[in-house]
């Protein structure tokens, strides 16, 4: 009886952890010069900011539909191009330090001098979809680009 209670409790704790955004199983190394925001919810599961206004954020969504990375990257791209505010600036495959493959979608907004840069990198595992967003004013983002790329390569999603 005691072991049954213990097992039930452990299963419940795991289920709660899996359901809670803070427990989503991923890791991203905070870029140098950025501060990790301690409570990024409700919008994000991870968020870090540089002092000069560049942000990196991660959202983890349960992959209940077992959709592929092709589906998710198309869906993200379609959504961002729908309103006409985001101009595609490149799409490429990325491979993390742990060998995980993702799709990097890059966009620009507004004019080159005063506009913004916005990246979404999509990682898909069997259970989770991860959207790693990065962006800021283009001039500021250019300063942080190397660090942001290193952070994305450090990503590890379970």
């Amino acid at each position: 009886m005691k072991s049954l209670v213990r097992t039930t409790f452990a299963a419940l704790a795991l289920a709660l952890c899996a359901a809670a955004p803070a427990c989503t199983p991923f890791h991203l190394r905070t870029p140098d010069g950025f501060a990790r925001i301690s409570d990024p919810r409700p919008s994000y599961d991870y968020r870090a900011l540089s002092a000069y206004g560049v942000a990196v954020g991660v959202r983890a969504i349960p992959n209940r539909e077992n959709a592929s990375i092709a589906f998710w990257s198309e869906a993200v791209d379609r959504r961002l191009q729908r309103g006409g505010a985001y101009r595609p600036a490149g799409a490429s495959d990325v491979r993390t330090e742990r060998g995980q493959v993702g799709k990097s979608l890059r966009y620009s907004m507004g004019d080159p001098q005063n506009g913004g840069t916005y990246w979404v990198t999509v990682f898909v595992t069997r259970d989770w979809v991860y959207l790693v967003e990065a962006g800021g004013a283009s001039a500021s983002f250019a300063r942080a680009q190397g660090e942001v790329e290193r952070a994305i390569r450090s990503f590890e999603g379970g």
Partner: protein
Amino acid sequence: MSAARSYPGYSMASSAAGSVASEPSRGSESTSVDSAPSAAPEAAAPTTRSESVGGAARLLSVAARNVPARAAHGNTVRTTAVAGNTTEGSSAAVQQAPAQVLLIYNAQLVAQVDHVPAGIDQVIEAATTMGGFLATRTDTSVTVRVPVGRFREALGRVESFSTVLNRNVQAEDVTEQFHDLEVRLANLRSVQTRLQQFLARATNVTEALTVERELERVGQQIDEIEGRMRFLGNRAAFSTITVTLMARPQANTLVARGLTPMHEPLPETSLPFEVLEQLGLPRLLLSR
């Protein structure tokens, strides 16, 4: 008075005003649409805007109107200054008539979108990418300010991701009001200069104090007019767009009610993932 003027806080609008002179016609316009026409009618701008002599005459009439206003205060110094200004201005203004028109654009749109919060984000995004900014926001409406030169583009952008049900565009011409202020400002500055000269020549304390008080009063009036001119310049430089958003009725609701129109274009598939609607740079940068 020189016809080549620079409006305080109006550097953007002064260059853009020409480009928008063919935008919504002077005065007020109200349009309700079922099928979406172009953002603003290309109605011909009033001809007086391009008639340089007419503009100069208007300017002179504004200056002339100001003379009795000042004379009514019973200050001979100011009356003299106005007269001098008007004489100087008459030849210069006729030669170089003002071509700048100061219009304040306001638009109110009522539109349908699939997802209201995402639609509001898209309006803000559109404004910020055009060099504008968010003014106010509620759960169902948003007011943004966009540079006047991109007013039409901004309206077009909103239409690109929504179905506009009602559109109300107004253009308020404040050119004359601004010129009035400008003339009054020039006159007050002349008065100020004269008073400063009087103050320098004051022979006793009583005289000096009297002039000093008058100087203070004139200074306050100058500040008020400059503030008003800055306000008008800012209102003209950035047009105001208010968008009230409503959720678009879902296709299955229409089917359930038997309301699906026969020739309705196929609806765009909307993916049932809320996270997609939450994407975007503004949210990433401003997320709380």
